[in-house]
């Protein structure tokens, strides 16, 4: 009895984390990447709770306010915390801050009511807000007096969604096509690879531009276009790794046991190509978000007043010299998210590489 008990306690630590996961978590850049993506997911999930105002709220008396206008540390009587004084812009006088009034920024403030998650959540509670009849803009306002921070927060899901949909399209079509092409070989492979060649002849963002030019602009078409543009990448990748495992002994064994082609492919071959697919998907999220923002910037993607980051940047470009913050912050947001996915993808590649 005692022996058995000690044996089980000895066995327990054997279920350790796999080596690649250990390697991954030991890499500080990977951890940074996961933190960035996690932060981004929280922002997407709790957007209206985190954002001070609805993204489309405009006020023509507060256009182009620089970040933090009217916001100061410490109250009028030396109180601790952030305090806000009313700020306005008039065509002649410029930005004016009325310092005779000040209201504190507090946690859990009731603001304008919002609906979230398709009407499941109805509330007016926000994480922080001003306790008083005044608006505050930590990241400033744009040409219509809309709060840049709120628009950034509400635009986050667009980037994430574009990334997910396009990676979904790329994996959903590219992986089976590449796998079948590599597994069957012969004429099928030849035809598929020439088609992939044609798609790869439109480098980078060009294929997405061609598709959008053909089927029309707009956010939906951008997602599909960026997804289609990633199909050849997956097809090549999976074909390569299928070719490298196709003649391994366990696949031959499965065949020798009378297993048919396609089930063998999906049971034994594709799971062994999983590592490069996962790595590529993380990097592809980054590329998709960049492409979509680029198309938004060119005016081929999201349409106003959608708070898509690339589009916000394009609008900000028009008055760059007057209000540089309007273009700066959406760009920073894009860099951060894309960097997060690139860091994770890069670290995954190192961790999953058996030579490492």
């Amino acid at each position, binding site marked *: 009895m005692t022996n058995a008990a000690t044996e089980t306690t000895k066995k327990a630590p054997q279920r350790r984390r796999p080596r690649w996961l250990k390697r991954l978590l030991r890499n500080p*850049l990977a951890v940074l990447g996961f933190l960035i993506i996690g932060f981004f997911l929280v922002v997407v999930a709790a957007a209206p709770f985190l954002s001070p105002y609805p993204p489309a709220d405009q006020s023509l008396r507060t256009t182009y306010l620089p970040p933090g206008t009217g916001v100061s540390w410490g109250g009028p009587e030396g109180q601790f915390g952030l305090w806000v004084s009313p700020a306005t812009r008039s065509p002649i006088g410029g930005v004016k801050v009325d310092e005779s009034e000040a209201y504190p920024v507090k946690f859990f403030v009731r603001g304008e009511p919002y609906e979230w998650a398709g009407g499941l959540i109805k509330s007016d509670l926000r994480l922080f807000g001003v306790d008083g009849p005044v608006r505050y803009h930590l990241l400033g306002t744009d040409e219509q007096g809309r709060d840049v921070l709120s628009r950034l927060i509400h635009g986050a899901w667009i980037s994430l969604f574009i990334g997910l949909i396009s990676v979904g399209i790329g994996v959903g079509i590219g992986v089976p096509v590449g796998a079948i092409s590599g597994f069957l070989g012969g004429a099928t492979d030849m035809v598929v690879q*020439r*088609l992939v*060649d*044609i798609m*790869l*002849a*439109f*480098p*980078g*963002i*060009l294929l997405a*531009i*061609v598709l*959008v*030019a*053909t*089927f*029309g*602009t707009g956010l939906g078409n951008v997602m599909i276009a960026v997804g289609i543009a990633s199909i050849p990448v997956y097809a090549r990748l999976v074909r390569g790794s299928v070719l490298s495992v196709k003649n391994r002994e366990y696949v031959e064994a499965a065949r020798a046991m009378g297993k048919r082609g396609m089930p063998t492919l999906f049971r034994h071959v594709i799971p062994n190509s999983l590592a490069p697919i996962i790595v590529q998907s993380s990097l592809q999220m*980054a590329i998709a978000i*960049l492409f979509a*923002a*680029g198309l938004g*910037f*060119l*005016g*081929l993607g999201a349409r106003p007043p959608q708070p898509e980051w*690339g589009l916000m*940047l*394009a609008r*900000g*470009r028009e008055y*760059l*010299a007057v209000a*540089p913050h309007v*273009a*700066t912050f*959406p*760009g920073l947001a*894009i*860099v951060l998210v*894309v*960097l997060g996915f*690139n*860091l994770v993808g*890069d670290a995954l590649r190192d961790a999953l590489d058996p030579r490492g």
Partner: protein
Amino acid sequence: MLEYTLRRILIALPAIFGVIVVVFAMVRLAPGDPAVLLAGEFADQATIERIRERFGLDRSMPEQFAAFVSNLAQGDLGRSTRTNRLVTEDLAQFFPNTLELAFGAIIVALVIGIPAGVLSAVKRNTWVDALVTFIALLGVSMPVFWFGLLAILFFSVDLGWFPVAGRGTFSHVVLPAITLGVSSTAIIARMTRSSMLEVLDQDYVRTARAKGVLGRTTIIKHALRNALVPVVTIGGLEFGRLMAGAVLTETVFTWPGVGRLLVDSILARDYPVVQGAVLLIAVSFIVVNLLVDLIYGLIDPRIRYD
């Protein structure tokens, strides 16, 4: 070598054919009457009919395609619906500017990327290496248009060192070339690093090191020569990619290149120009890749042509 060259060209041909099919299909798949798309939305009925006649748009698809290819072979891509200029004239005017920009960008990428990669490899697993790796990742994570805007804001608006936009003198090309070159710099730095590490790990380098016959700098110099072979390839492929990537950079800096012509034409629904620009960019990308393959064979005698 000759056989290899011919075979590579034969592989490139189906891709070029495919590009032509895609460009042909663009107008036919787009919603709306192709004749109207090619004539422009403000064209009168007579012009539309003339276009329909000229491109054979009332005939069957194979016949239309034959007409398209035959026009293409005669260098006829039609006329812009906005300016009524020949598409070929537009392309001939804008393409050299895109090439100029891409050349500038690849020079930036090589001049910064190679030393950064060598430094990273030589100082492997130190903070220098980590810093280069991080900056390189930042470089590929940055939207070029944002980087370009910040560069304009800082160097042109604040400091007044460079013109805000346009093309002409050397100082006009500096900011756009750096902007376009950022992600290639990062890619070349990483490629140089891994290629350098591989060479430094070779037996002959280790032997030389162990014997102490060669100084550190000599080793690096000799290793670099061998490490640069794959870097040259990547540099060439990057150049091809840059010609397409220039779309965004050209828009930010209002650089009169093919990329901007393409975007302007898409927004104005000027389909003949869209077709021409897409065809030009894609075919030059294929040709550049082909040349890179052939040059690769020349500089590395270890490559076998079979």
